[in-house]
């Protein structure tokens, strides 16, 4: 999660990285046993909910990634 956020801040992340970040947060939140795991993704999830445009502004376009790879990634998710 931290690596993905860093990638976003460094302007290296693509839209698929943000999607992965969101999925990862959702998964950690729902599958964790302890309260720390269940609540620690909250800051990321809420910033994604209320400040999504800021994430999108930092994301570089997916054009550099071949379309095939994106289609594959979407299929397996």
């Amino acid at each position, binding site marked *: 999660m931290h690596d993905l956020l860093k990638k976003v801040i460094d302007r290296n992340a693509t839209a698929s990285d943000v999607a*992965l970040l969101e999925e*990862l947060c959702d998964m950690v939140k*729902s*599958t964790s046993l302890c309260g720390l795991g*269940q609540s620690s993704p909250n800051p990321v999830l809420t910033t994604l909910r209320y400040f999504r445009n800021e994430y999108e502004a930092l994301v570089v376009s997916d054009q550099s990634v071949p379309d095939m790879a994106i289609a594959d*990634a979407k299929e*397996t998710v």
Partner: protein
Amino acid sequence: MTAVVVALKIDGRDVSGRADETILDVCRENKIPIPTLCFLEGLSGWGACRLCLVEVKGSNKLLSSCVTKVTEGMDVTTTSPRLEKYRRMIVQMLFSERNHVCSVCVSNGHCELQNLAQKMEITHINIPYRYPKLPLDASHDLFRLDHNRCVLCTRCVRVCDEIEGAHTWDVAGRGVESHVIIDLDQPWADSSSCTNCGKCVRVCPTGALTRKGTGVAEMEKDESFLPYLTRMREHNT
């Protein structure tokens, strides 16, 4: 003591079980498949791998079925698109966490992690690999410990403590730094508590603990001794 029988619903089916059984026990009795990794019949429940998570009506959390006891009127769902998505992600995260290179692993073809991935039809990992630099302990005369293949299921820790009674194994470190250790984090050969029984090697789901002298795909494991051993001991007490 008479056992209390409770009635519950699993995947819409009416089933019954003893009150001291877990959801997973009842599912296994009724041939309802739930993927597991850290669970092993004969050992205590651990609830660490999170693969056996199920949805229970009335609870907003997902519960691990290997440590949740059945109660009267429970309504359990064992498979849903949401659960399957999480389970796939958990297996992918296990692969990305350490260096699980099946093609050169002695447990290739007999590995529970590999079987899980095959069953879930995972062809590639979406999460970036971490490639940690982890050591290998081959100091013991008979066995080998490879941290690269360890999934931290703690089966070795539990079998050594509960069945053998030696408690040679333990888990050290936190979070991503967690790893299994022998005695006071010393080489296996220097362990004073290890009895060389090899139970840990037999219960390890992956190629983390193996017998020396095995080549690629030659390490076959046999865990069937465990339930018998536990049941026999229960009868004796």
